[in-house]
């Protein structure tokens, strides 16, 4: 069952009609609807291509947050073997919004860390909608240390609306945890490849995405603030999120032009949510290629280049 986004409503109608026709034909073998249904399919396919060829920034935000979009665990299950989840920050708790552990990527052992949003009501609550608490960042720090000590590359999968704005999270040092996680990203002497698979929400994303190579899926977003939050502050009206999404330059395409990300992975037509396996496989190929590119470099060279990359970042703006 496809979940349709608001801007996909016309598409939903056509696809719904085709589905109805076929259902009728199944109930009544006398009917021949295939020709008519195929025409509707073609029409839907054309509309889908057109819609996704030119998604506005706000529509990209909606796609990036699509409930059927593959999430962190979907990538882990399909791309990696021998996944061995490792839990806890050794201080307070295990944060279920962040998964992490050892796994093999094409037989090569790596450390994989990511935000997990959950896929139904129960798991979404369990995962806190992908909003990590300090324990999640501290678990990530611990796992990055582990990877560093045993010379294993780190792969991070970023998909979070942001760090959790809660009372306990603040009391236990949300800021400090994020700052230290970012710092650890910049200090480890092993390759670090990060992919933004959905939402890259502010500091909560930076803590994992400060990488040697940063990849974004074609319709994912990465932003200092949500468009709704930005709209309510700068426009004093949360309904101006379309304008804010535009102004913030949060799309993969703008971020590539700004030199903030290194690569865009194309999504299947209609977004990763329509062809999940194909999207996951495309991300997998990119991770393998980038790890290959980084392999063989010593720790200091990696670290120096990573830091230099961030020092140089922002030296040019968007073309006028």
């Amino acid at each position, binding site marked *: 069952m496809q979940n349709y986004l608001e801007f996909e409503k016309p598409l939903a109608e056509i696809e719904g009609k085709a589905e109805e026709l076929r259902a009728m034909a199944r109930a009544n073998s006398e009917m021949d609807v295939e020709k008519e249904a195929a025409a509707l399919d073609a029409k839907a396919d054309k509309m889908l291509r057109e819609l996704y060829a030119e998604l506005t920034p706000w529509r990209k935000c909606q796609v990036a947050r699509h409930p059927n979009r593959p999430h962190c665990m979907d990538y882990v299950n399909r791309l990696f073997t021998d996944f061995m989840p490792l839990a806890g920050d050794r201080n307070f708790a295990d944060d279920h919004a962040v998964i992490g552990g050892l796994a093999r990527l094409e037989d090569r052992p790596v450390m994989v860390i990511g935000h997990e949003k959950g896929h139904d009501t129960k798991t979404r609550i369990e995962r806190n909608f992908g909003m990590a608490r300090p324990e999640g960042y501290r678990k990530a720090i611990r796992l990055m240390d582990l990877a560093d000590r045993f010379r294993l590359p780190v792969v991070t999968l970023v998909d979070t609306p942001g760090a959790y704005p809660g009372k306990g999270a603040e009391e236990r040092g949300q800021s400090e945890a994020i700052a230290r996680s970012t710092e650890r990203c910049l200090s480890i002497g092993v390759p670090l490849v990060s992919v933004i698979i959905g939402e890259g929400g502010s500091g909560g994303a930076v803590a994992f995405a*400060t990488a040697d190579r940063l990849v974004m899926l074609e319709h994912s977003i990465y932003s200092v603030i949500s468009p709704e939050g930005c709209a309510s502050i700068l426009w004093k009206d949360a309904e101006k999120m379309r304008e804010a999404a535009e102004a913030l330059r949060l799309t993969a395409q703008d971020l590539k032009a700004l030199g903030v990300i290194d690569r865009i992975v194309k999504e299947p037509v209609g977004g990763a949510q329509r062809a999940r396996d194909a999207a996951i496989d495309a991300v997998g190929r990119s991770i393998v290629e980038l790890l290959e590119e980084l392999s063989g470099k010593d720790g200091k060279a990696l670290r120096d280049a990573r830091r230099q990359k961030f020092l140089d970042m922002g030296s040019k703006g968007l073309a006028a």
Partner: protein
Amino acid sequence: MNWISNYVRPKINSLFSRREVPENLWTKCSECGTMLFHRELADNLMVCTNCDHHMAITPRERFASLFDGGVYTEVKVPAPVTDPLHFKDQKRYPDRMKAAQKSTGEEEAMLVAEGEIGRTPIVAAAQDFSFMGGSMGMYVGNAIIAAAQRAVKLKRPLVLFSAAGGARMQEGILSLMQMPRTTVAVQMLKEAGLPYIVVLTHPTTGGVTASYAMLGDVHIAEPNALICFAGPRVIEQTIREKLPEGFQRAEYLLDHGMLDRVTHRSQMRAELITLTRMLTGLPPEVKGDLPPPSIGPDAETAPELPAAVENAEPAKAGAKTAGDAAAAKPVTAKSAKPAADAKDKGTAK
């Protein structure tokens, strides 16, 4: 430091700064409502004489009271690309910038300087909350990197005064990228074995707290400063319950282990001197130490001060008005030299 800059200059400076402060200005304490005579308030480091509330203080006012005799030399900050995203909300970003520059008389939201505190050479950086809420964009990032590089070059501690509502939204993702950029700056200091002391002032929130403000060797906060990642209003909306009294204030953070100390502004300078001297292995400060003209520079307490800095004209202390910007330019240009010479534009060590 020679006698002129240490003794005569401050007197001249104080004459200047006196003239710039409007004589008949009254300020209302935002905490207790008492009307305070501006001159008196400024002399009290912008702390309410009635209720001890710590009001915002500009970087220049802070530096004037922090550095010996109010003497410091500005460290030049490389200018970033203007309006990199062509950002427009209800106003254009360049227009907002111009308005902030006009109202503050400052170029941007952070000031970096080098000088001595209690004859201890340091580099200091202070964020200016009056400039677009102190927000962290490319300039603030560049300022922190320049401060760290200068500190590494001179082998001095860096003392950073934070004050910001967070990242500057008008620079979008590039403001967010100041989190890793400033973290690299902190790493430069750590790897050079230099102390990095953060003084968190009201308010320090968002991406600023979640990067350089929480990575200090020592964290000192001013009393009652709001220090947080997510603001109290956002949290109340999320968890739908009332937050406890004093939540996310300096004393609360001290209780929860996020700070080393909460220190009254009037004691801050003395504590910073004591701390930096111990961390850099210097002997205790000699109180009231002011050498007579014949003695000249003390080789032991000011070992790293290069001649170029020694001769640089010290920046004028005290509040700077918009009209004064031109007068301050030559100082900036001169003090810029040493920093500009360091053309190793941020090679991480």
